[in-house]
Structure formats: C-alpha cells, structure tokens
C-alpha cells in the first residue's frame, strides 16, 4: 500500500485484555486472529476483505514482534497452498479472499489440504460477495465447503460473535483435523461495532520452529493409497469430531420459546435481518426475544442432527431461511428428518425466493405467507409506498472510471481505432478496466475471470481476419495472466492483441502494490517491468506506451498492433498511474507546498460556454465524472451544454479527445499559478495590458 496509511487501524490491533475495540467487522477478524495465536496469514485482496490485507500490510512491526508471518499472496491459490504449513505442524494459519471467485481460484489447493487434513488450525476467511453491491457472479461458497468437506461458519453479524467464532474456528479445525471456512457477508465485513479485546497471543510454535525441525508423514499426502484413506477418515473420524465439537460448544443458538407448532431455522449471518422482520411484524423485540422458536445456524455446515431433531420434533412445520441457491441446508434438513422419520414439514424455497438477497422486506413477505399457511395468522402488510411516477426518472448509476482515470483514454483510443477498422471481438478481464463494457464506451464482449482476458480470446485463431483484442490489468497479469494468457498465446501461436493496463497498483481492490508497482516498498520487491516478463515468455511484438493520455499515440499503436504483418501475439502495455492513488499522494503535497509559499501550478480544464453547441460528443468519448452538463446559458439554445466541474484534476483527456477526434474548439486548459514569482507577475502585467488593448466587446 503505497498511498494509504492504516496506522490508526494497526493501533487497534495492539489493544490488550479488557480494552474496548471499536471498528469494522473485518478488522475485528484481523484482531481475533492475533488473539488466537495465529502463526501465519496470507491472502489476496478484494472487496469486502481488502481491509484485512491492507492493515496487516501496514502492521509489519507488530506482526514481527508476535512472530507472525504475513504474506500478500500472488493469488488465492497461492494463499490456499500456504495452509500446507498446518498439515504437519501445530501452526494456526489463516488465509483470506473474496468469494466465490477467490475460492474458485483456490480450490485445487483447498481440495488437497482438506483431503490430507490438518494438525494446526486452518481458517479460510471468505468475504461472501453476494447481493447488493456485489460485483461478481451470484454463487455460494457453501458448495465448496460441502464438496471438499471443510466446515462452514456463518456467524450472526455482531462483533463479539464474529470474534468468538474466529477463535472457535481454530479449535474446531484442530479438533476435527479439518480446515474451517468463516463466511462474512459484505455488510458484516463493513459492520462497525465493538467488542472487548483480549491480549494478542504469540504462537507457541512458530513457522521458524517448523522449518527447523521438519516432520514428514506420507499419510498426509494426496497420493494412493493415502487419498482413499483420507476419504474414510473424513467420514468416520473428522465429521463426528466436528459435530461433537459444535454441539458441545453450543456454536448454534436458540432464540424464543421452546415449544410451539412452528419454528424458524436461519443461517447465522441472516439472523439480525430476520429478527428485524419479526420485530416489524410484532413477533420479536430489539433483543431477539422472539415469539416463535428460532434456531440459528452459526455453523452452516455440517448440520448437527441431534439439534435439528430436537428442534423439529414436536413441530408441524419449520421455515428454513437460507439465502442463495441451491438450497443445500434445506435438502440436508429434509434428509435428517426423513432418516429420523419425523413428519415436520420443511418450508423454504417454496415461499422464499430461490434467487437474490434476503432483505428484511423479502423475509417479511415470506414470513407472512408462512404464518398464513401454518398458523392461520394474518400479519399487517409492510408499507409499500407508490413511487411508480418516478421510476423512469431516477437514472441508473453504474460504477465507472474515476475522474482523470488513465484507463479512460485507452478506451477512447480503442473507440477511435474501431471507428477506422471496424468492431473487433474484445475479451475483457476483471479490474477497473471492465467498466469499459458500460456507457459511454460499450467495449467488451465477455469476461472469464481475473487474469483470463487473453485466454478468453484464445479460441479465435488464424490471423487472416480481424484480430481479437484482449484486455488485462496488471493485477490479473501477475495473478495468472502471464502464464494462462501470454504464455499460452505464445505457445499456441496466437495472433491476438493483448492490452495490459499497467497503472502501478492493484487498483480496483484498493491500490495495493503488485510486482510491477513503481513505488518502493520496504517489505516487498516491486518495479518488475511487465514488458520484461512478457518478452521473457517469448512475445516479440511489445509496445509500452508510458502516457496513456496521449490519445493519438495510443490510437496509432493500437492501429499498428491490429494491422501489422508480424505474426505471433502482440502486447501493448498502457502505463499511467492510477489517478486515485496519484491524487492521494500529490494533493496533500500540493497544498503543503502552496502553504509554504512555493510557486505551484494547478491545471484544470474548462468548456467555453459560448462555443459549446451542446452535442455532447466529447462526453460520449470520455464519461469522466468531472465532464458533465449544465443548463444552456444561451437563451436562444435549448439543450444542455458540456461543463467541467471543479473536481477536474487536469489530466488533459478532454483536450486530447477534441484534438484526436477533431471535435470542437471549446476546451481550454486553465493553469493557475499559485504564489507567482516577480517574473510571472511582470510578464502577466505586460500581457494583460497588451491584450486589454487588443480585446473587444
């Protein structure tokens, strides 16, 4: 993290026993890891768990003092493979990533570690990016837990509980020799709350102890015949041990009365929303004193058959509130009840939606129907204000490139090139650059995953027709794109063009450093050029453009890449610093210099309202948040004109676009000289006097 500091958060990690911790859910997890005596931590950044990675990256001294090894892994697969350290040694280890995408990437290593089993506690912390605000495909991590047999914790969103579940997770993992997943939804990760801290615990056994005294046990390695043994072990030993641990430690909770003909079973992570829905129906209160029996699954997998049977035994029906699909818990409940020959009806997806987030409103509707059907009670309907008259007015606000983003001119150049050469197939990737698929650029046909832009274009061989274009970010490039995309294209003699967006950070996840970052980093090795790596795997045609804002140059390079007779993969590396991070660094610096009386020049752009005709062609080639519209000040004209607001950072794209596309003479660059020198002032005086004489009107 070059441009942001997490010093304040690091301080919170140092809190001792009895102190009150206040902060976000994911930071609470970070603290809980240290309280649990974790020996090593790895992971890959991504919403909603970036904060954990960022804070640990800034906590080197603290981690060193506790003998905790922390690594910013190259990918989730690399992070998951780290858990190998817990196989033979009593080391507690944790890895973290965005799920379900990160779990996809990690699944090879996860399968291996889950098969052989662990000695030290192994915790996989996943930010379940599902529902509102999610940027990925809507799937469940639950499936991975089941298929590899890792236990899945889904604590209710309350900091004390989340922290407790981290510690219990390690114990569960050790008791059952099984890696444990801890799932936190987006809102839980960002949930600000409080808990009472405990002292940090230095691991009794550290990674250094392990390396100094290696232990080997071939029965833990996934190779015949041990692999067959592992499967038996999972069923015969680890599973019962886990069920026993969960039951004994009462990780699942009960709310409300004991009796009753109907009840509710809910995933822990959904309990607070469920309670609110019940409260609004007069069926619970602010402390969870529900009028119906509620069984909260803070452990979503495995289910505890004794608990389920006891809860369901005397009930006619239970409602299972389980978000997402397939409805694994519902299936399992039915199986448990059938095996016990209980006739309790399990009601789930037949009334609750099969797809989509379970908001309070969704739950309320489902509960109303459940109560109507199974207890004959009519509940008051939720308020449903009629706002149909404004449905068409309120515009969508898709996320887009930031003000002054260096990736915008790249897509402007692509737009211009495609106007000349026709539309090309564009294989997009994951990262900020994926916003190209939205207006105003509308560029990109598919995206197949992080770092997979080039591989996503690999079916289109033979360069006799139009060359497909792949886009890949620097983050994806180092994550796997160098091998899965570039190496693959070299080996298979592709003729495609790959554009690598090199903005010096893993920008979309919050600006973390990566191998090609330009900033020096005391704890990581940076400044490894993408061009060197690309040439190293055998690409001959490589062009680096070190100023993406030069739209004409960018356009010309792209045109050459798409038309050159040279065979083999072409790689264009588009390099300019992420503007968000650049501003984070430079803006405070600028203010400081101005305050110190230094001569400083600030540039920003403007639109001449007298010459702008309101066609908005510039906006369609840019989409910059600072390039907007305002009512036409000309009483004879109707349509709004373009306007640059004060958030402009002076990147210059507007002007370049109007040059490259011969748009109009309305853009101007205004340079404001702060603390001008005597020379500036003298020249300015002369200019103004002369121009004053020449000017008219």
């Amino acid at each position, binding site marked *: 993290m070059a441009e942001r500091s997490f010093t304040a958060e690091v301080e919170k990690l140092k809190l001792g026993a009895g102190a009150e911790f206040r902060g976000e859910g994911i930071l609470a997890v970070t603290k809980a890891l240290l309280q649990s005596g974790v020996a090593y931590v790895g992971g890959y950044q991504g919403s909603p768990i*970036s904060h954990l990675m960022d804070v640990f990256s800034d906590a080197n001294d603290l981690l060193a003092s506790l003998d905790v090894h922390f690594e910013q892994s190259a990918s989730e697969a690399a992070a998951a493979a780290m858990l190998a350290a817990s196989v033979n040694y009593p080391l507690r280890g944790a890895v973290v990533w965005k799920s379900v995408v990160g779990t996809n990437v990690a699944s090879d290593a996860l399968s291996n570690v889950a098969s052989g089993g662990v000695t030290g506690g192994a915790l996989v912390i996943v930010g379940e990016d599902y529902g509102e605000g999610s940027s990925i495909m809507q799937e469940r991590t639950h499936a991975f837990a089941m298929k590899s047999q890792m236990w899945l914790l889904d604590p209710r969103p309350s900091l004390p509980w989340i922290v407790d579940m981290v510690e219990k997770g390690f114990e569960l993992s050790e008791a059952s020799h099984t890696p444990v997943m801890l799932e936190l939804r987006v809102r*839980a990760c*960002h949930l*600000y*709350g409080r808990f009472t801290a405990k002292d940090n615990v230095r691991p009794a056994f550290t990674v250094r102890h392990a390396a100094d005294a290696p232990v080997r046990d071939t029965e833990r390695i996934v190779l015949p015949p041990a692999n067959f043994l592992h499967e038996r072990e999972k069923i015969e030993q680890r599973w019962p041990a886990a069920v026993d641990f969960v039951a004994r430690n009462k990780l699942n909770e009960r709310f409300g009365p004991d009796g009753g003909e109907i009840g509710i079973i809910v995933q822990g992570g959904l309990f*607070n929303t469920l309670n*609110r829905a019940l409260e*609004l129906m*007069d069926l619970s209160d*602010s*402390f969870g004193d529900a009028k119906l029996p509620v069984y909260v699954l803070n452990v979503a997998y495995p289910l505890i058959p004794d608990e389920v049977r006891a809860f369901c035994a005397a009930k006619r029906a239970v409602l299972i509130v389980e978000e997402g699909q397939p409805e694994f818990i519902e299936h399992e409940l039915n199986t448990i009840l059938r095996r016990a020959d209980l006739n309790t009806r399990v009601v789930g997806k037949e009334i609750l939606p099969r797809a989509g987030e379970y*908001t*309070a409103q969704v739950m309320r509707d489902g509960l109303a129907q459940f109560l109507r059907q199974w207890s004959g009670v009519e509940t008051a309907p*939720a308020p449903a204000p009629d*706002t149909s008259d*404004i449905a068409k*007015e309120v515009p*969508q*606000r898709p996320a*887009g490139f*930031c003000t002054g983003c260096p990736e915008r001119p790249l897509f402007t150049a692509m737009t211009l090139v495609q106007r000349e050469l026709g539309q090309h197939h564009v294989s997009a990737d994951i990262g*900020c650059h994926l916003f190209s698929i939205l*207006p105003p650029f509308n560029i990109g046909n598919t995206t197949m995953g992080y770092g997979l832009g080039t591989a996503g274009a690999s079916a289109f061989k033979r360069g006799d027709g139009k060359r497909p274009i792949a886009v890949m970010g620097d983050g994806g490039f180092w994550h796997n794109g160098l091998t899965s995309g570039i190496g693959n294209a070299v080996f298979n003699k592709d003729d495609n063009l790959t554009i690598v967006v090199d903005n010096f950070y893993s920008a*979309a*996840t919050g600006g973390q450093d990566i191998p090609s970052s330009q900033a020096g980093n005391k704890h990581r090795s940076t400044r490894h050029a993408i061009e060197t790596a690309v040439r190293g795997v055998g690409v001959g045609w490589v062009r680096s453009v070190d100023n993406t804002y030069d739209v004409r140059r960018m356009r010309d390079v792209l045109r050459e890449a798409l038309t050159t007779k040279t065979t083999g993969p072409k790689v264009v590396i588009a390099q300019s610093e992420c503007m968000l991070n650049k501003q984070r660094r430079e803006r405070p610096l600028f203010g400081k210099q101005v305050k110190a009386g230094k001569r400083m020049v600030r540039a920003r752009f*403007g639109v*001449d309202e007298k*010459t702008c*005709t309101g*066609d*908005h*062609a510039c906006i*369609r080639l840019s*989409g910059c*948040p600072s*390039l*907007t*519209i305002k009512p036409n000040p000309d*009483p*004879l*004209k109707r349509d*709004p004109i373009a306007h640059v607001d004060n958030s402009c950072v002076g990147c210059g794209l*507007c002007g370049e676009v109007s*040059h490259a596309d*011969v*748009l*109009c*003479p309305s853009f*101007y660059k*205004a*340079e*404001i*000289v*702060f603390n001008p020198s005597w020379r500036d002032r003298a020249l*300015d005086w002369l*200019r103004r006097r*002369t*121009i004053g004489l*020449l*000017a008219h009107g």
Partner: protein
Amino acid sequence: MAERQRITLAVLALGGQGGGVLSDWLIDVGERSDWLVQATSVQGVAQRTGATIYYLEFFPEAALDAREPVLAPMPAPGDVDIVVASELMEAGRALLRGLVTPERTMLVTSTHRIYAIAEKSAPGDGTADSSKVLDAARRQAKALVAFDMQAACDSTGSAISAVMLGALAGSGALPFPRAAYEDAIRRSAIAVEANLAGFAAGFAGRDEAVPGLPTPLTLEDIVAEAERRLGEYQDTDYAALYRARLAPFAHRSPELRRELARTLALAMTYEDVMRVAQLKTRRAREGEIRAEVRAEPGQILRVTEYMHPRWQELCDTLPAGLGARLERNRFLRRLIGPLFERGRHVRTTDIGAFALLRLLASWRRARRATLRFARENARIESWLAAIRSEPDDALALELALAQDLLKGYGDTHARGMAKFETVIAAHRALRSEASAVKKVRALRQSLARGEDAPATSAASA
C-alpha cells in the same frame, strides 16, 4: 410493538462524496452522547461514481440493561427514521426502495443534480425531471428538508458531507445538540474550518422550493437578443436582413414565429473560424474563466485553447470561388493539407496568439464573400422558402425546429446536417399525409436523441 428505542438512519450518496466520513462523524456524535451505534455500508471498492448506501442504527446505552441488542445490517421499508441523500436522484432512489414512509421518515436531501452518464451522453437533453422526484419526496416523507447543498459547498469550500451533517443536525431528527456535531468535525481534524462553515450553512438550510423552468422568452425578447447578436456577429445590415427574413411570417402562429425567430438567429450565426476567434477574444472572457476555474485574486491564469483548424475550414474561409477551387484541388491538399492534420494548442493569454486570433476575428468583414457563407446562406434561403410554402403552422414549426439538430463542428456538424436534411426530405415526402405533423415530429425527436443520422430514406420514417 414495544416502545421503540432505536433510531435508524440511511445515507444515500455517490462514491467519493464522503458518505463514509459522514457515517464516521455520526458514529462519533452518537457514541459520545451515550448511544450504542452500529454502522455498515455497501460501498464500491475504489471507484468513485456508483451509488452507495450507508446505514446506521442508534440505541440508547441506558436501555441496554447489560444485554446486546440485535441491530440490523440493512434498512427495512417502514423502519427508517431518517434518510439523508447527497443528491436529488439519490433521494429518488431512496423513495423507489421504499425507505421513505409517511408515518416515520424525515428526508434530508440536496436538490442539486449530479448527472448520470446516460443523462450526460444523450445528444440532446436527456436529463431527468427533478420536479417529479421532489413532488414524490413531499408526498412520501413525514418531513422534508431539501435545499441545494452543493451551493453551500461552493460558498464555504466545505465537503458536501459536512453540509449534509449540518442539515441533518438542523432538522432536529436526532437527539443531539449542535455542539456535539461540531465537536465531531473538530476531532476528525481534516479541513476543520471549511467543514464547520459547511456545517453551519447546512444547519441553516431549510426546505426550499426548487426553481422551476425559466419562463420562455417572448418574441420581442428573442428578436432583441438576436439583433444584438447578429450585429456583433456581422453588422447592422445583417441584423436588418434577419428582420426582413422574419417579416413574411408576421401572420403565422405565435409559436412558429417565436421558434423561427430563435432558430433563424442561430442559423445566421453559424460557428465559423471568425466567430470562434471573436468569441475567444472578448474582453469579458478572462473574468468568466477566472470565475469558472476559481482562480483567486493574486493568482496568475494561463489559458490554452485546444483548436483544430481543418483543411475544410481553410477553404470555407476563403472567397467562395477560390475556396471551392481549393476544395477540389488534390495537389494543393496533399501539399498543404498535412499542416491541418494536427490539433493546435493556442495559449490565448500570450500576446502573439491573442493577436493572431484578433486578426482572424477581424476577417469577419469579408465573411459575406466566403465559401461557407455562400453555402450557409443558400441553405437558409431554401429552408425559409420551405417553411414559407408550408401553410400548416404545426408542420412549418417542425421545419423551423429542425435547425436545432445542427450542432458541433467538423464531423459532428456534418452528422447534424444530415439529420437536418433528413427532416426536410421527410417533410417533402409526407406533407400531404394527414398524419404528417406527427410523423415529422417523431422523426425529428428521434434524430435529436440519437447520435447518428439515419441512412434510411425519409419516406420510411
């Protein structure tokens, strides 16, 4: 339901507007006033443009009784006490989500607009109707505080989050004294003075009516403005020509006369090199730019224009005969053309560049002889003739309004011209039909919305 102890609050903002900072301030205010505060959000990650929502719940410590309350991580319709929106359409979004209910919700919103990409990139006017959203807000909210918070930012130099905090404090919806909020701003130690000023402006903000659409100009106003502009553009004779061109329409409908007076003035002041040079060398311009970019007294301003003189503009600017010959001369075009392929950076705060533009502007005395003038003049004459010979006022109005399709420079202007011609041709083909007005209007409006001129024939419109 038992007596309600919590207060729930949702903040709707755009990424980068400081919704997180506002949330942090509120947490601080609440905790120091002995309330348990829970806050959460679904913000994007690093990007700055999407809609975000922050949600807070306050619970009095005194009511805890050593138990932890079960607080919700997301707002539920019917359960939200306060909604704070940083922009009018975000208030609209809160309304659409059902978060604002008449029994419970205080809505505090800014009335200014940050246009969404779809609104901005529409070729014509694609902006949403603010008054509808504001009407719905008045109807749905239990109480409403709505005013232009951006204006308060501009006048105080504060972040909009501070104005939002002030407006929220001023609404009295939360049980905390003014000083508690101000202390929170001070403790955050960032831009304290500006944010306190913004807070004060927000605190004083009350529900304000949003200015409606300006009343349309009268025919007299339009003609007066047009004559002034034509005099500046060319000379008094040119203004007289304008008046003479309007004269034959004296007996037509008021709407046609008004719109034609407007569009004819625009047609006769087409943007050529001399006009652009003239507009860029006005005496008032420096002051306008200084205000626009907020240059402070004592700071020096340098202005660089992005201009792109084209070969075509050279031809356009020459006397008609010469220009037309040059336009056809391939040899000369190859010889001199490359000079016109690059954009030019013209620093109009430098004496030389300014003098050059003045010189170009003064070429307007020869405008009547130029190739462009000959062409524009002929187009205007035939357009006026078409309108004159159309007896149906409504249909004639459509022709008059077709001029609004002409926008921009270079290729953009050429596309506009193609759209204009399309409407004229459609009128010719359809004028005898009963539904001609409807069809021509639909065509004109669809052309105004779309970027490209259609290749289809007028009759199929």
